């Protein structure tokens, strides 16, 4: 740290908010005092949410003049896609920031439907929408399906989480400022879970409960029959949700050796079932919303072309 300060060459940083909830932009503020330390080392050159800057200004910047560009949110519109490409051109390091940019996140669930279905649901059939108007004029085109950042441009580093939890972000920023693009834990959440020591000798599940359906006895959620994505989810958050008595939903994404987080967890859970063959179907049916449970964050990765049904 000290050495860098003496050099006093501040790294140029950009941050862009694509299709996402905005939590990621806020998460950067969530590192509190650390942000002030950081400001000694960085210069923010582009952050539409926090400073007055136009796309033309970005265009004018020299290629590769930005040291690190953080892109949060997914790519849902032509505008998102354009800025992603532009940032890629201007930045030395392109970083996918948060679950939406990395794997599509909750809004990636929209890839289960086509554009028409989405527009109908949102603008026409939604009960709270009084004037049924489809947006048309002067808006960037809504893409046929949602894309993740690395489906559009080459990405150098990934900061997982929805949004990236504080310890994850701190480690990532330290690493990136030192030019490292590999960081974070490569082990699943159970390792650092506050409930780990309550795991029984053997986990056997004979019935699934939704989180609100069972009185929490304070033990490992999975052992209680409450689906916890922790075993299939990268550690690093220190079990923020578990500490708040909420099972992990998997926002940190799959382990490095796993291609499909949902499938990994499903096969683990299927192996843990302790019911007679005839009752298996019934027990499996008691899992509500399979996709929302196991693919809450990774549907866009799973269905990059959008849609499970055959449609154009």
């Amino acid at each position, binding site marked *: 740290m000290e050495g860098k300060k003496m050099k006093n060459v501040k790294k140029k940083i950009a941050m862009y908010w694509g299709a996402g909830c905005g939590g990621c932009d806020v998460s950067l503020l969530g590192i509190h005092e650390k942000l002030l330390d950081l400001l000694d080392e960085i210069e923010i050159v582009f952050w539409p949410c926090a400073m007055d800057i136009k796309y033309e200004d970005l265009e004018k910047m020299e290629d590769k003049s930005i040291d690190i560009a953080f892109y949060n949110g997914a790519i849902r519109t032509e505008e998102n896609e354009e800025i992603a490409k532009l940032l890629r051109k201007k930045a030395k390091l392109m970083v996918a920031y948060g679950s939406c940019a990395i794997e599509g996140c909750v809004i990636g669930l929209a890839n289960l439907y086509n554009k028409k279905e989405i527009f109908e649901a949102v603008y026409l059939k939604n009960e709270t929408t009084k004037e049924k108007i489809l947006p048309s004029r002067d808006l960037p085109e809504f893409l046929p399906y949602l894309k993740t950042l690395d489906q559009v441009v080459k990405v150098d580093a990934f900061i997982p989480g929805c949004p990236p939890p504080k310890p994850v972000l701190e480690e990532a920023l330290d690493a990136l400022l030192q030019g490292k693009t590999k960081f974070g834990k490569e*082990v699943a*959440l159970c390792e650092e879970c506050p409930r780990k020591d309550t795991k029984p000798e053997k986990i056997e599940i004979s019935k699934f409960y939704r989180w609100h359906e069972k009185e929490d006895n304070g033990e490992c959620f*999975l052992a209680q029959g409450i689906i916890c994505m*922790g*075993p299939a989810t990268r550690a690093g958050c220190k079990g923020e949700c578990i500490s708040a008595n909420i099972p992990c939903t998997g926002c940190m994404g799959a382990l490095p050796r796993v291609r499909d987080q949902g499938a990994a967890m499903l096969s683990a859970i299927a*192996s843990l079932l302790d019911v007679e063959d005839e009752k298996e179907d019934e027990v499996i049916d008691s899992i509500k919303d399979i996709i929302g449970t196991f693919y809450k964050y990774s549907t866009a990765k799973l269905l990059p072309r959008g849609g499970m049904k055959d449609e154009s």
Partner: protein
Amino acid sequence: MARRIGVFVCHCGVNIAGVVDVERVAEEIKKHPNVVFATTYQYMCSDPGQNLIRQKIEEENLDAVVIAACSPAMHEETFRNVCKDYFNPYRCEMANIREQCSWVHDGKEATEKAIKIVKATVEKLKENEDLLPILVPVEKRCLVIGGGIAGIQAALDIADAGYEVILVEKEPSIGGRMAQLSETFPTLDCSQCILTPKMVALSRHPKVKLYAYSEILDISGYVGNFTVKILKKPRYVDEDKCTVCGDCEKVCPVIVPNEFEMGRKPRKAIYIPFPQAVPSTYTLDREACLGLAPLTCAQCKDACEAGAIDYDMQPKIVEEKVGAIIVATGYNLYDKNKLVEYGYGEDDDIITSLEFERMLSASGPTQGKIIKPSTGEVPKKIVFIQCAGSRDRQHMPYCSSICCMYTAKHALLYKHHVPDGEAYVFYIDIRATGKGYEEFIARVMEEERINYIRGKVAKIYREGNKLIVCGVDTLTGRRIEIKADLVVLAMAIVGKEETKEIAKLLKVAIDEGGFLKESHPKLKPVEALSRGIYFAGCCQSPKDIPSAVAQASAAASKVLALFAKDRLEKDPLVAVIDEEHCSGCGVCISVCPYGAMTWQNGKAKCIEALCEGCGTCAAACPSNNIEMRNFKDEQIEKMVEVVI
């Protein structure tokens, strides 16, 4: 270094070549990268076949081979042994083009599939690592659970070979069911007379440590290295001091039913199950006793001149280390109350076959007299019902295997006791497959004039002093009604509840009848799926004494083979965990069917000696953190690639 792979395609007579164009398989595979040689042969596993492999390995300078033939379960060992002389045996793989191809397909597709199977196997082989067997030390002591005839025989065989045996019997005495029987078919020797010498031999054997009146609490470990926790229940009588004088029994005021007599005779709270019991000692039944305290009763303690009675005796837990385990926990009879639809339930004059055995025994509740329990009279008409609860979809679907034989014995003994009596036997078929058995049945049917009726009993009901047995003779179609004095049910033989608990500890599967499941019904009938665990006697399936004894000796010989080596060699195809990246989620530990995955410092650890390489854990690990040796993800991917 690129492998030089040779492929040997077997015809297996017409088994493979009759369906698959083996020549084309060889031609096609020759074109596959790294395959430098391919040929076919009539029977690869024959001596000339094996020699062909040797010759080609030398001539063609092969450093790995694929044998495209039957299942690796059949001949992998054969071919790996051939290759062992030239290179690491794990460079030999079998491609199963018989069970998985020629036997289940036909036409052109079969050949295409065979080619794909062989290609996939070549791809797997390319990435195989050279491996050495895992060596596991062996504790050369054997645990036998259950002291019936099967357990006794197995223990004696092993002890006679010079190895220590720990025999655990939960009842006060060893002997099991055989001690309850009167005379045994087909030669009608007295059961006790042939059993007791073995019981005594066992108790005197310097290599046998007998824990009677004891229970297994826990078993951990694996082949060669089990740790067993045994609970020695307090008898409150010192085995060494008790002289079996019986003074205590005389004064004891408590009377309860005697289990050994199937409840048909009383015993005291302090008792010996039968006179020849081993160990030879009285046992105080704590549940029945008035209080175990000098103030409440203490009559027995006062009466015992030997000073053998000790009310302060405590349960003891001992730990023993053993290398092998034989389970010989025997059988029970199916509960006759479950046959209510026939009216078999509560009537005093409807008894089970084991109750009848006790009745026939000179030391039994009636001193060997056959009586009608309700009145004490000699029954003049007796009905035996075979397959009671067996071969019945509503109850036990299987054949209990010995009921035909002992029912014939019962009918014969009845005629010897009551020459002017009439005996009827209801049967479905007569199954008398043992040596001398058919002759025995013929003798009973002809010489003793027993009425064998082919058919099932539909209902039994009481009419005054008699039981009315209604059935149909399926040979003549005639309806039959017999006014019987006594009905004897040849109840189905079922596994014991206790066996289920032992099976759980040992992670052995149990079938619908409650019997232990063997590793292979034909080729490994006395072995469990996990190594180092063997079965003997009726806990594996219903059987007669000769079969139980033979199985016991078979199990013993398996144990002796295990003990013949100081270290066990084990297939190294085990699960390998990347410890650094294990989160300790516990999924693998929960799913391993062999108990090979355990906790260690919050992470999973594979006990290689126990791992059977089944891959369940690798498929379940949500971190994809477990790799099967020589079945790595990359190998599987390459195999899939050439197949699709």
